[in-house]
């Protein structure tokens, strides 16, 4: 082969320079594509309000409904369209911040796949109908038996109208379903320290020891905690220790990430307690003798043999906690998503007790003085209850809104069968998700940016606020109606008393809030709307401590399989984010994968199973199988395989449909022993190479820098000196 004078490098250089020249020259010449004349329309206002200036945005306050967090938002409205959302700086929930799901709410508002007209099932398929026809059909059938409502997390006056409607149609069961929740932690807090939603002061802690609680992404109010985490990390820098079987966003930020055997978090906590009491002279006041003897049984070596964390690691964690007070110990996420979940939360609270954190970094929260407006957080135990009750024939008429049970339910709890036994199903939704697709009547809802509402945020410190939601623009689809309007209409139609004076939900909400705030003035109402929130009376609670039931059954499965972790992520969340391209295209926080599911496997496990990165793997449980591609990564326990929740839809619009897999479907239906929460990190699965390989679409091909200094780092010691330490 003759050597060419012009090698490839030179050729590419030449091409690059030439290309740049062409591009620059292009800037100066009329382009064919972009500089259009007469292609677009400009439509002027007829008679605009005085403050309206085209091109200048006006910011309106409202509330984000992306999750139960209830962050206050400001939406920029220009030329009648809402274009951008930001956090409301005056909010005690999010303090001006907003997460990616909040930002992407815009796309659920402008989504092309939104339902535009009511749908009614005729001859087996959903066909468009008028509101009158749909509502009269509901009126005809709603009283035909035992009625129930299923919602997501719900609070404020929406909760009141739903419950009013439910009692008007003679039903009593309200299933609030949220797959991603902190129910186990909150139940344990309620039982043990007497406050289910205590204030958690990450900013005051010097060490955070978190058992699976992904407080930066999925735990109660992630935006709030992320802000406090920022303070925790400023000078002097706090230490974050995260123990979980598969790395979460919080785990990725930790100083010490501990890959623990799934379901054995209790023994780690007991081992740490043992080291604290025996090596660091911590007395353990307030701990019962039964718990003390349990702690004595779990010296670090014993604990290590159960939870697969080296004994010296356990001792180091204890030393760090002993040397830095105050600290805080949290439990949530994967640690509470197994049969021992409640025990792990109880053990975490026990650690807080012996470390003296209760009353210091964990303090009492405040309770709303109007419990009827309070937030029903929702949990997955309710999902299972819904399936069980439906199968038993206890539900004849079901109204669903804000949740997608047919997507969230594991096949093992037989939700599909139960669903078919329900005689008449009405779904109120803005998107045709799996549940809406299987309904008898679908009522198209306004988006959260077109609707009125009042909400109690899942978590806030100090005064409790009622967060107000107001429309930021005219409806995109003119035949949709607000959630409150629809439910109020249904309640009126069902003969609920005392509602006739309200023409619409706005009138109801305004009158209810004027009663609550004891003022009827227009000026006050406008000031509430401008602030986006208004304080409501609340009562203080007191913390106490009574030992919770701590028990540890070792994970000694010898079936040769792995434990499936259906991991929760900010982004797709429980699947509601899958129809939003901004979230689909945002690289996952850990794997950096976009637009698809993946299965995280430890390199050792992958090697022993003969699986390479990008190989299709079949994950088989006793309840079915899913096939997705492997992502080989050290941030997972070798005995686990993690598949994120949220993808694998068979409906929910063009962006979500047929994209990825849903690990929830193959869960074995196991629950946390105490709360009944569906155990998403406990199903045993068999993993096999499916024999095909296709590289995953991800933004980071390798997780090393290869000396390129993409991210500059200095040692912790040097960093301490630069921050004024010695």
């Amino acid at each position: 082969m003759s050597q060419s004078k012009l090698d490839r490098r030179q050729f590419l250089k030449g091409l690059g320079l030439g290309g740049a020249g062409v591009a620059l020259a292009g800037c100066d010449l009329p382009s064919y594509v972009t500089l259009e004349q007469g292609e677009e329309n400009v439509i002027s206002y007829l008679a605009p309000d005085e403050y309206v200036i085209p091109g200048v945005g006006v910011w309106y306050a409202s509330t984000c409904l992306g999750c139960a967090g209830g962050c206050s938002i400001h939406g920029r409205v220009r030329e009648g369209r809402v274009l951008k959302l930001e956090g409301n700086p005056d909010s005690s929930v999010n303090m001006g911040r907003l997460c990616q799901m909040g930002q992407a709410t815009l796309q659920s508002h402008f989504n092309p796949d939104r339902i535009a007209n009511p749908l009614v099932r005729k001859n087996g398929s959903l066909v468009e109908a008028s509101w009158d026809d749909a509502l009269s059909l509901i009126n005809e059938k709603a009283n035909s038996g035992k009625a129930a409502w299923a919602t997501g997390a719900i609070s404020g006056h929406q909760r009141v109208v739903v419950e009013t409607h439910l009692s008007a149609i003679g039903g009593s069961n309200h299933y609030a379903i949220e797959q991603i929740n902190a129910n186990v932690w909150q139940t344990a807090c309620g039982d043990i320290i007497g406050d289910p939603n205590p204030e958690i002061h990450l900013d005051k802690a010097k060490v955070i020891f978190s058992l699976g609680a992904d407080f930066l992404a999925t735990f109660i109010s992630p935006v709030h905690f992320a802000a406090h985490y920022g303070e925790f990390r400023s000078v002097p820098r706090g230490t974050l220790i995260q123990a979980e079987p598969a790395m979460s966003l919080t785990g990725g930020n930790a100083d010490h990430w501990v890959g623990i055997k799934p379901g054995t978090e209790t023994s780690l906590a007991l081992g740490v307690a043992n080291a604290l009491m025996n090596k660091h002279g911590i007395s353990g006041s307030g701990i019962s003798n039964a718990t003390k003897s349990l702690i004595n049984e779990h010296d670090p070596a014993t604990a290590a043999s159960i939870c697969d964390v080296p004994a010296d690691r356990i001792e180091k964690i204890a030393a760090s906690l002993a040397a830095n007070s105050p600290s805080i110990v949290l439990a949530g996420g994967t640690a509470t998503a197994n049969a021992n979940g409640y025990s792990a939360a109880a053990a975490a609270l026990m650690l807080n007790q012996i470390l003296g954190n209760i009353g210091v970094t964990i303090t009492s929260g405040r309770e709303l003085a109007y419990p009827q407006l309070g937030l029903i957080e929702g949990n997955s135990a309710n999902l299972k209850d819904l399936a069980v009750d439906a199968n038993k024939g206890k539900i004849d008429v079901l109204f669903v809104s804000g949740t997608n049970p047919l997507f969230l339910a594991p096949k093992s709890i037989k939700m599909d069968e139960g669903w078919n036994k329900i005689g008449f199903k009405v779904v109120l939704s803005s998107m045709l998700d799996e549940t809406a697709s299987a309904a008898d009547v679908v009522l198209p809802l306004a988006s959260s940016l077109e609707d009125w509402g009042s909400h109690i945020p899942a978590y806030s410190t100090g005064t409790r606020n009622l967060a107000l939601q107001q429309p930021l623009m005219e409806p995109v689809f003119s035949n949709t109606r607000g959630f409150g309007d629809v439910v109020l209409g249904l309640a009126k139609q069902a003969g609920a008393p005392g509602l006739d004076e309200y023409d619409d939900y706005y009138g109801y909400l305004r009158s209810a809030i004027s009663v609550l705030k004891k003022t009827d003035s227009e000026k006050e109402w406008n000031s509430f709307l401008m602030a986006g929130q208004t304080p409501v009376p609340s009562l203080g609670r007191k913390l106490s401590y009574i030992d919770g039931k701590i028990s540890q059954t070792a994970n000694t499965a010898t079936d040769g399989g792995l434990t499936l972790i259906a991991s929760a992520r900010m982004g797709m969340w429980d699947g509601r984010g899958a129809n939003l391209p901004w979230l689909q295209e945002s690289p996952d926080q850990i794997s950096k994968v976009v637009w698809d599911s993946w299965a995280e496997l430890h390199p050792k496990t992958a090697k022993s199973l003969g699986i390479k990165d990008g190989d299709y793997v079949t994950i088989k449980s006793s309840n079915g199988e899913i096939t997705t591609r492997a992502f080989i990564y050290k941030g997972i326990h070798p005995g686990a395989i993690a598949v994120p929740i949220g993808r694998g839809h068979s409906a929910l619009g063009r962006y979500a449909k047929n994209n990825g897999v849903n690990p929830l479907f193959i869960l074995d239906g196991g629950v946390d022993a105490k709360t009944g929460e569906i155990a998403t990190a406990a199903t045993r699965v068999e993993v096999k190479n499916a024999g095909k390989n296709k590289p995953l679409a991800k933004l980071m091909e390798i997780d090393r820098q290869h000396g390129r200094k993409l991210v500059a780092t200095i040692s912790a010691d040097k960093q301490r000196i630069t921050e004024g330490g010695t």
Partner: protein
Amino acid sequence: MVKDSSTKRSIPWIRLSMLMVFVGAIIVIAAQVLDQKLHYVGEDVVPGPIVPGTQYPDEKFTGIDVPQPINFSHKIHAGDNEINCMFCHTYARRSKVSGIPPLSKCMGCHTVIATDKPEIQKLTAMWEKGESPKWNKVHDLPDFVHFTHQRHLKRFLFDNEELDVSDAKRVCSMCHGDIAEMTVAKKSRPLTMGFCIRCHEANEGPSDCTKCHK
């Protein structure tokens, strides 16, 4: 010579793709040269009045005729009757867009003026129906370009001691040509990045990319 397959991998499609890129580049250059010819600037372009104290852009462009729902005459309004541009395009000094005046502004005069003209009757009919005309956009920049009228008016008109505010149309004509001589507007400056940059250089405007590309 020993062929080292590990360092010199042969990629069969690379030559073909490079050839295609090369041919593509030639086509783009040729097309642009051709395009310049197509948009040859003839004698019919009216030179605009000059703004004192500035380097005035002299590049011309002959745009296409863009039909409008109402045959609005800039000549009658801004030319013959010497109405200040900013009387109707009232947002220009407050916003990035100059704005099409709201219909209520048109009707402010035309409930009494020239009500016998067919174009005004068209306008009145729209007003009574509560419909705005669907104007066709003549001066359209790509979405990644953030041009602001407000800033340019401040620089060339309000901060310009040599120019009286009543002479606003001189500033407008820097980019829009002599609109006061037109009926419906027609593009008469290229409004390309090169056009912007040359004026920015001559008048010491900002030159960082992010001023316009946000």
